[in-house]
């Protein structure tokens, strides 16, 4: 059919209408639209729709990309994806528009005499491999490092781990998921001995209450929030927003409860106190399935270089735990948390009601916390005490920020301490990795080296002399960039940056490698609900852009490790995934075969006997349960989860006379992380062109600051000038300011503090002390 511009446009409108109707049909079973409208919709076209996951957030919505003459011209929600049922958020459906940005990195650039010179990719990869080899020869294998991403695909993460740990033999590999998910991981491991949520998004269809802990889901997980609102409207499910700032999520919720930063620790304990005090403990569940433990206290904040901490868990009994909680009566906690006794009791009563199903959601608010591991433990305590876990509509659910923080960073294990299965400190895990990788077991070091913050401190100290970053922009996203930017500029470290667009990180690179964008390569991502999703390459990338996995393989070959990387350029994604799957064989973590993932919109692991496991640890749904009971927390040797005694401890830096405001940082719906992609999508950039600093109107009044006026935000580390925003997108409490971090021209991370949770090593971007003044 020859399509003229006019009838082509009519056709596209029909496609758009069809996409919306399909989405509506999934959300409202039995929905009827006027039949003549449906009959009008054309079914044939020259658009080729290809499926995949969204490039941006950890929700992992399924997308269909319409390709016409080799170009991506349209994006719609995949109605067959149970994640989003055809819905997308504003970022999702505009995503492919960044590909056409004029400043796309299309060729390798090598710095020569202070200038970037366009260089053939094979020559640039020679330079990278030679430099890496030479650095190892001169300074040892721990002088080179790779820093990757929760946005790297599963094959990309896998070959990075194999190169660093298996081929070179260093644990100098970490990733930006350290900055967002590490506390979730240590929370899961300490409580359950197994990482990642036990439930899935289908919980939304069953829960009576959604309690969000420091989590602005309306902007950060918008499609899930839409699904929650749908349940609120359809059957009266309730949303309770527990946060330090009033956001779009608060206004859409049934109730918004605000707390003083850091006191979430105390409030969670007060909820547990109340549950025990009121006799709402699910005694048989706790007796059968839980142990009690405590760890060290006053554990520090990691502010000094080479900070070390190891917890010393100690078993306690229920009575000791109960006694500990006496410090956390609602009355005592109300005094410093800003949460009323009534509201603490209200929250406890929701969790304590045996007839109500409750899901708790959280993301950065609890994870980016100097007691992030503890906070995760404490919310698990609430669900374990009440037995509200691992059942449809009942459970704690740690959401991820990045599209493959779970699939790549956590499951492949691109952290210094991790291997694709298990950890480097475990001999059995090292032996398995050595066997699958076909390397001598002794080559994989048994000791972790640098976590993200410490890796960049090591660059600053001159200990790391070569670093390769992939799919990430640390010089905008690290805390305290005021230290780490000059560190990366030092001549002592050779910097290689692979990216799709120029960023402040590529600005300091010695070699810039042009990476393929999402749909210009094949790949796999794993989202928040343990769903692995595959996509095939949909369009050609420009110039000499190359998939990150393939660039790693090419460097490995040039370094003499070709026999360990026998993959083919056309088929490497499939070959790598098949090799990787061997790590997770078995009922506890089996991954779906690739042919299944090619056919359907993802599968949830453990994938056993052709079926996804939606609720882990519940014998009704999870074939790995083997203790003959209803529940089996098989991540722990005795099959029991741990209820942790974790106290309230203050933040390392709190407002004082000199720096009287809390600074909280985060994201906005329009932009993805540091904005390197979404700021190149005109409609998103226009909707939110620059960062700002949010004030409470009373604070603005006292400081005589008006909306839009430039304000200087200063901490002990640095300062940043931004326009004031008063009562617009979000509303911080009095004494607090909020700044989004997407804007590389307003570097709020020059101001933030690089304190971290001593257990997870995840920095706290939500709390430090600043002063504000007219600029």
């Amino acid at each position: 059919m020859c399509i003229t511009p006019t009838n082509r446009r009519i056709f596209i409108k029909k496609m758009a209408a069809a996409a919306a109707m399909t989405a509506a049909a999934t959300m409202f079973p039995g929905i009827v639209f006027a039949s003549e409208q449906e009959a009008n919709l054309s079914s044939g076209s020259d658009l080729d729709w290809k499926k995949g996951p969204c490039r941006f957030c950890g929700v992992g919505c399924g997308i269909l990309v319409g390709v016409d003459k080799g170009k991506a011209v349209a994006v719609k929600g995949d109605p067959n994806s149970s994640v989003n049922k055809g819905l997308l958020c504003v970022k999702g459906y505009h995503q492919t528009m960044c590909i056409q940005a004029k400043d796309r990195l299309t060729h390798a650039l090598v710095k020569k005499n202070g200038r970037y010179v366009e260089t053939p990719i094979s020559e640039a990869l020679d330079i990278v491999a030679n430099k890496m080899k030479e650095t190892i020869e001169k300074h040892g294998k721990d002088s080179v490092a790779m820093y990757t991403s929760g946005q790297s695909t599963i094959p990309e993460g896998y070959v990075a781990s194999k190169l660093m740990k298996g081929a070179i033999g260093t644990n100098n590999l970490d990733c930006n998921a350290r900055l967002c998910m590490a506390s979730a991981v240590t929370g899961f491991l300490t409580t359950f001995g197994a990482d990642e949520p036990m439930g899935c998004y289908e919980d939304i269809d069953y829960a009576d209450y959604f309690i969000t802990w420091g989590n602005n889901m309306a902007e950060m997980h918008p499609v899930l929030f839409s699904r929650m609102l749908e349940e609120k409207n359809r059957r009266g499910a309730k949303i309770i927003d527990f946060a330090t700032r009033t956001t779009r999520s608060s206004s859409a919720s049934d109730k918004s409860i605000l707390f003083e930063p850091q006191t979430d620790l105390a409030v969670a304990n007060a909820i547990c106190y109340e549950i025990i005090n009121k006799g709402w403990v699910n005694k048989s569940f706790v007796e059968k399935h839980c142990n009690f433990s405590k760890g060290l206290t006053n554990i520090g904040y990691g502010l000094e270089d080479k900070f070390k901490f190891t917890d010393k868990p100690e078993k306690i009994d229920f009575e000791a735990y109960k006694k500990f909680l006496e410090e956390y009566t609602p009355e005592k906690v109300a005094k410093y948390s800003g949460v009323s006794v009534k509201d603490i009791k209200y929250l406890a009563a929701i969790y304590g009601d045996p007839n109500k199903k409750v899901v708790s959601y959280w993301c950065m608010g609890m994870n980016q916390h100097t007691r992030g591991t503890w906070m995760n433990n404490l919310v698990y305590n609430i669900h374990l005490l009440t037995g509200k876990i691992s059942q449809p509509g009942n459970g704690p659910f740690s959401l991820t920020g990045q599209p493959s923080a779970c699939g790549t960073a956590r499951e492949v294990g691109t952290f210094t301490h991790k291997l694709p299965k298990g950890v480097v400190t475990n001999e059995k895990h090292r032996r398995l990795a050595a066997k699958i990788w076909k390397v001598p077991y002794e080559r994989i070091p048994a000791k972790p080296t640098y976590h993200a913050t410490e890796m960049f401190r090591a660059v600053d100290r001159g200990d790391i002399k070569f670093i390769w970053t992939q799919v990430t922009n640390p010089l905008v996203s690290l805390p305290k960039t005021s230290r780490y930017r000059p560190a990366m500029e030092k001549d002592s470290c050779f910097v290689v940056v692979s990216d799709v667009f120029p960023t402040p990180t590529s600005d300091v690179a010695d070699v810039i490698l042009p990476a393929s964008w999402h749909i210009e390569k094949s790949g796999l991502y794993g989202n928040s609900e343990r769903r692995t999703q595959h996509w095939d390459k949909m369009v050609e990338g420009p110039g000499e852009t190359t998939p990150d996995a393939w660039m790693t393989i090419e460097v490995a070959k040039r370094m003499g490790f070709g026999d360990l990387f026998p993959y083919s350029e056309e088929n490497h994604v499939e070959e790598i995934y098949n090799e990787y799957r061997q790590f997770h064989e078995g009922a506890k973590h089996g991954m779906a075969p690739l042919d299944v993932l090619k056919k359907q919109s993802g599968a949830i692991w453990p994938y056993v006997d052709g079926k996804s496991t939606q609720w882990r640890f519940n014998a009704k749904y999870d074939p790995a349960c083997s203790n003959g009971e209803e529940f089996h927390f098989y991540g722990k040797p005795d099959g029991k989860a741990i209820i942790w005694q974790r106290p309230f401890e203050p933040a390392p830096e709190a407002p004082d006379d000199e720096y009287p405001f809390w600074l909280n940082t985060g994201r906005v719906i329009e932009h993805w992380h540091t904005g390197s992609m979404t700021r190149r999508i005109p409609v998103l950039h226009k909707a939110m062109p620059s960062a700002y600093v949010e004030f409470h109107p009373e604070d603005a009044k006292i400081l005589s600051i008006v909306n839009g006026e430039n304000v200087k935000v200063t901490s002990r580390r640095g300062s940043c000038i931004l326009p004031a925003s008063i009562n617009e997108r979000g509303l911080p409490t009095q004494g607090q300011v909020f700044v989004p971090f997407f804007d590389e021209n307003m570097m709020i991370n020059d101001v933030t503090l690089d304190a971290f949770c001593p257990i997870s090593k995840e920095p706290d971007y939500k709390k430090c002390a600043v002063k504000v003044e007219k600029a």
Partner: protein
Amino acid sequence: MPVKSYLAHPHEGKKSELLSALSEIECCEVIPAENKDVIVLVTDTANEIEENILKEKLEAIESIKLFSMVSGFDTQN
């Protein structure tokens, strides 16, 4: 030249009010569900300026409770 589609959810009892408000806007096409409180809305604008004007008009409609975007098409013709 953006073409977008949305699901528009009216406030309780306001479906016909929302339908007529949306129908009055030039670059909107509406397809109401016959048996549920939801309306499919397809917007077709020539450029970003028109898109912004449209956005303001949509935001001003009182009978609307929630918009969910479903698809977006950027065509050159």
